[in-house]
C-alpha cells in the first residue's frame, strides 16, 4: 500500500470511525486505531469547549455535546491551526437551535472575541484632533473591529455568565441592531449599536470614504449624532489612525 493510500485510509477512519474503514488496517493495528480515534474526537471537543465556554454554560453539557458530535461529523478540521476549528460552530448551533437565536448569538460573540484577541496589533491613535481637516479625513479603525448582526439579548447573557451572575431570560431584539467587537490594546470589547451607527461603520469601511462624505450622506440633522459616534469611537479605542484622504 502506498503512503498516500494509507493516509487516506487513516483520514477516513478518523472522520467516520466506521468498521468498514477499520478493516483496511491489520488486526494488530486495531487497539491503536481506537486510541487515535479517541484522541481525534477528544481534541476537537476540548477545542470547542474551550472556545465556547459561555455558550456551554448557557446550554448545559448534554445539549452542547450533542452539537459537538454533529459539528465534528459535518466539519472535519482543515486548517493547520486548531484555533480555527470553531469558526463554523456558531452556524452549527443556529441550525440546531433555530428557535433560540441567543444560542447562535452567544457563540458568535465568543468567536468574535477570540478572533479579536489575536488580530493584528494597531497603535493607539496619536493624531492631534485639533489639526485634522475632517472633511477629507479617512477614519482607520483597528484591524480587530468586526460587526455582527444579532437577533437576541445575547450580549447581556454573555456579560452575566462571564461575571458569574444569573443571566437574564432570552429575548428577541430588533434585527436592525448589531454588535461591534474589537480589541483596544490587549482588551477585547463589544458594544451594541443601532442600525444608523452600523451603516456609518459600513460607509467608512469603503475605499476612499471620508468623514466629510459621511456627514454629507447623513445630512445636517445628523451631524450632532455623528459627533457623538466619533467621540464614542475615540473613547472605545476603536480608531487607530485618521489620515488625509486627499494626500
Amino acid at each position, binding site marked *: 500500500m502506498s503512503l498516500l493510500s*494509507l493516509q487516506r485510509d487513516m483520514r477516513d477512519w478518523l472522520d467516520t470511525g466506521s468498521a468498514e474503514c477499520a478493516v483496511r488496517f491489520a488486526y494488530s493495528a486495531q487497539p491503536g486505531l481506537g486510541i487515535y480515534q479517541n484522541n481525534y474526537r477528544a481534541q476537537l471537543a476540548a477545542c470547542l469547549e474551550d472556545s465556547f465556554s459561555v455558550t456551554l454554560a448557557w446550554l448545559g453539557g448534554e445539549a452542547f455535546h450533542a452539537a459537538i458530535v454533529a459539528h465534528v461529523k459535518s466539519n472535519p478540521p482543515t486548517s493547520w491551526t486548531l484555533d480555527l476549528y470553531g469558526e463554523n460552530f456558531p452556524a452549527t448551533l443556529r441550525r440546531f437551535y433555530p428557535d433560540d437565536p441567543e444560542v447562535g448569538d452567544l457563540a458568535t460573540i465568543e468567536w468574535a472575541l477570540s478572533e479579536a484577541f489575536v488580530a493584528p496589533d494597531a497603535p493607539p491613535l496619536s493624531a492631534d484632533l485639533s489639526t485634522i481637516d475632517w472633511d477629507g479625513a479617512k477614519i482607520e479603525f483597528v484591524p480587530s473591529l468586526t460587526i455582527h448582526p444579532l437577533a437576541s439579548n445575547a450580549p447581556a447573557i454573555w456579560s452575566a455568565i462571564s461575571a458569574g451572575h444569573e443571566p437574564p431570560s432570552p429575548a428577541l431584539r430588533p434585527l436592525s441592531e448589531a454588535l461591534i467587537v474589537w480589541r483596544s490594546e490587549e482588551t477585547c470589547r463589544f458594544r451594541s449599536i443601532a442600525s444608523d451607527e452600523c451603516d456609518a461603520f459600513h460607509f467608512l469601511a469603503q475605499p476612499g470614504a471620508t468623514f466629510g462624505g459621511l456627514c454629507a450622506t447623513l445630512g445636517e440633522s445628523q451631524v450632532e449624532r455623528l459627533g457623538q459616534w466619533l467621540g464614542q469611537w475615540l473613547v472605545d479605542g476603536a480608531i487607530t489612525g485618521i489620515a488625509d484622504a486627499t494626500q
Partner: protein
Amino acid sequence: MDLPAFGGFGLGLRKPHYADFIDGRAAVDFVEIISENFMVDGGQPRRILREVRDHYPVAMHGVSMSIGSADGLDPEYLTRLRQLIDEIEPLFVSDHLCWTRIEGFNSHDLLPLPYTIEALDIVCANVSLAQDRLGRTMLIENPSSYIAFDEADMSEWEFLDALCQRSGCGLLVDVNNIFVSAQNHGFDALAYIDAVPGNRVRQIHLAGHTVGETMLIDTHDQPVCASVWDLYARLMPRLGAVATMIERDDDIPPLDVLLAELKVARDIAGTTTERRAA
C-alpha cells in the same frame, strides 16, 4: 551539521507560568514554545513571547508541519512559521516524525508513519523543502505511537538515522516517547537508545505518560517515571552539549515542582559529564 550545540536545561512555556518567565525569574537556561500557539497576527500571545525572549533563548517546537504527508507541505504554514522564526531568532526549530494532514484534512494529532523506503523518500523531501523555506536546519523528534506497520522496511531509529544523513537535519530525542513506543510495540528501548546517532542530537524531551487499557499513552500529565530517567542516564554519556527540557502539558504543577524535576535531569547529566571527564 551546521547547527550549533547548546547545553542547558529548560521548560515549556505554559500559561500558568507566564508571569515567571516574563519576569525572567524562572531559573532555566532556555524556554520552549509550541510554535503554533504563537503563529498569530498579534495581541497578547506575541507580546508575551517577545518579553520572554528578552530573558531567555527560545526553542520553537511545532506540531503541525506534517513532514510525513504524502501530498507535501502546506506553504501557508511554512510562511507563517518563517515569520515567527525571523522575529524570535530561536535556538532550535523542531517538529515530529509523523503526519497530521492529508488532502486538506488536518487531524491535529501526531499520526504514525510506516518506516518504509517510500516514506523515507517523502519525509526527506519534505524536511529538505522545509529547511530551505525556513532558512535553517530543523530538529526532528521521534514520536510516541500506537500502531506499528507490518510493511516497515526498517526500525524507527534506522529511519531517523537515514533521515539525518540525507536531509542534514538534527534530532530532538524524546526519551519518554522511546519508552512508550517500546512498551507498546515490544521493541528494546535500550537498543534504540544505543543506536541514536549522538552527534545529531541537539535537544532532549523528558515527560510523563499514562498507563492505558492496552497501551501506554503519551499524555504529558505526570512526572517523568524512573524507567525514563534510566534511559536518559544511559543516553547522555553518548551526547555532546544538548538542551534538555521537561514537557508538561496537563495537570500542570507549580513552577517549583517542575524546577525540582528539572534538577534531577541536571544531576543525571552532571554525573555523566563527570564520568566523561574522568
